């Protein structure tokens, strides 16, 4: 039990990264539209985030430096500011969508329109950030988010032909009627959702909040190599459930109500209830993660005192940024903007900003002056370099593909 509780930071971070509101809909949409033909990209993104989360966590534990601190130091104040603006925009768009996601989950339980729930959800998120201890927060929402494992059970209950599934996974092909650019657009969206910058900001800052030291490197690795794959498994099961039930029916997924439909068909009201609790916990956890990440990035860039564990009186500017972010995002969603569309666009913008986040991590994790004997080995460097090339290619291709496919239409 103690070991399980030690990885809740990784689980909470991964749940934010893999099954937040945008990912829930994107995974289901991809499964319904492309079947199992894009599972490979989820796997590519999963390995990438494991590699870089481990590096960011290791740097936090050994050098005591969170990711955005390094971004500014290594890229300089100007490019650092551009990165801050881009990352903050993506994080705020995501936060807005997460607040709506929590409200949408409550709407599915109550049938009361989600916009009415948004102010209450915003207040609750702020109260949790203000009053609940960091470790308690990550344990409650990280572990509760694991209820989404109900999608794994649903996949088995839908009784797939495993040979057929394996063939589709290992022989991916663009489905009939779909263009290659659209296929690539969704591949990029999946990759960006797995490697969203706020994940490493939150993970490394969370490590410092938890006072990780070099002796905790095993905990860092277990968090990175167990927590993130768990998040990836949940995303995969959501995609698979949609591929098995919605793809053959020709259903196009645009709403959260369609995402949880396979659990209802496969497992009845109990399964549906668990799925909705899981969605609530995952989106609430992602709201906490993105709200805190907004504060972390701004405070770390400007060199302010930061931290959820720091008393508000001593880290007032950090807490003020979090409050302003919550209010602004709540106001944005109350305009009636479609939250699912908001995250779809934020994923593409995240793809553009990826290299500026991951380059400094790779450089510092490789620097013996900071890292001493814990600097990157050959395997970490090889994987890190390969993924840096991949994120560069993806950041260049993201916007042209979005335009060419009219955002995947």
């Amino acid at each position, binding site marked *: 039990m103690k070991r399980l509780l030690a990885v809740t930071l990784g689980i909470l971070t991964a749940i934010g990264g893999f099954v937040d509101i945008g990912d829930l809909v994107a995974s289901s949409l991809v499964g319904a539209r492309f079947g199992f033909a894009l599972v490979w990209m989820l796997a590519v993104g999963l390995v990438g985030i494991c590699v870089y989360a481990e590096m960011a966590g290791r740097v936090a534990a050994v050098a005591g430096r969170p990711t955005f601190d390094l971004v500014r130091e290594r890229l300089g104040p100007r490019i650092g500011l551009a990165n801050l603006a881009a990352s903050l925009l993506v994080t705020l768009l995501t936060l807005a969508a997460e607040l709506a996601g929590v409200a949408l989950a409550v709407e599915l339980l109550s049938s009361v329109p989600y916009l009415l729930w948004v102010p209450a959800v915003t207040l609750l998120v702020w109260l949790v950030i203000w009053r609940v201890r960091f470790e308690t927060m990550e344990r409650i929402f990280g572990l509760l988010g694991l209820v989404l494992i109900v999608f794994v059970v649903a996949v088995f209950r839908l009784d797939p032909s495993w040979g057929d599934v394996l063939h589709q996974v290992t022989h991916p092909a663009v489905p009939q009627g779909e263009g290659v650019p659209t296929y690539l657009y969704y591949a990029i969206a999946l990759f960006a959702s797995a490697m969203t910058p706020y994940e490493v900001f939150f993970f490394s800052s969370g490590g410092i909040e938890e006072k990780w030291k070099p002796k905790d490197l095993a905990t860092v690795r277990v968090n990175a190599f167990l927590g993130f794959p768990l998040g990836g498994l949940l995303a995969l099961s959501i995609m698979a459930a949609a591929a098995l039930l919605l793809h053959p029916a020709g259903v196009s997924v645009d709403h959260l109500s369609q995402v949880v439909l396979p659990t209802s068909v496969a497992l009845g009201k109990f399964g549906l209830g668990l799925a909705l609790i899981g969605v609530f916990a995952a989106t609430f956890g992602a709201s906490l993660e993105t709200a805190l990440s907004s504060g972390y990035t701004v405070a770390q860039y400007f060199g302010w005192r930061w931290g959820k564990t720091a008393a508000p009186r001593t880290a007032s500017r950090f807490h003020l940024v979090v409050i302003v972010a919550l209010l602004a995002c709540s106001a944005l969603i109350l305009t009636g903007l479609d939250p699912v569309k908001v995250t779809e666009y934020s994923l593409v913008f995240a793809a553009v900003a990826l290299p500026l986040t991951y380059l400094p991590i790779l450089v510092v994790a490789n620097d013996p002056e900071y890292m001493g004997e814990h600097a990157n080995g050959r395997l970490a460097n090889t994987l890190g370099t390969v993924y840096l090339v991949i994120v560069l290619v993806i950041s260049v291709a993201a916007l042209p593909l979005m*335009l060419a496919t009219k955002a995947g239409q």
Partner: protein
Amino acid sequence: MSARVRVRRAGTAVVAAAVLAASGGCASSSRSDGDWRRKTAETAEAAASAVRTAEIGVRAAKGGKATGPYLSVLFNDADKDLNEVQSGYLSRQPPSVGADNLRARVSDLLDEAVDALDALRIAVRRGQIGKLAEIGKGLPALAGQLEAVQEDLT
């Protein structure tokens, strides 16, 4: 060019790209029969998707596998999608007399689909979950007709 100007231009390009992408769903007029047929096929596909969603929801309701509040939101979402599809399609002008016939055929199917989903939505709101199977019994055939239109045109 100064760094500030470059950053501003890059920002403008990003915003312009987002606006262009976001406007991708706007209806536009069809200049040829081929274009009209393609848009009609897309409309039939989107409408069939909404009807199939409702059909799966009805199946879940029939087996006692879904709650009333959930079904209410599911049918509302499908109905909203269908209404958007219908209004988008009807706002386009058919380019020829031949296209008029196709428009009439698809328009009838869309009307039928909207009526069916409205009936489901209203029944759930009134708590008549037990009647959903009866109300929704025509959905598979309706979805099949919409899919047939799509297949004919592609």
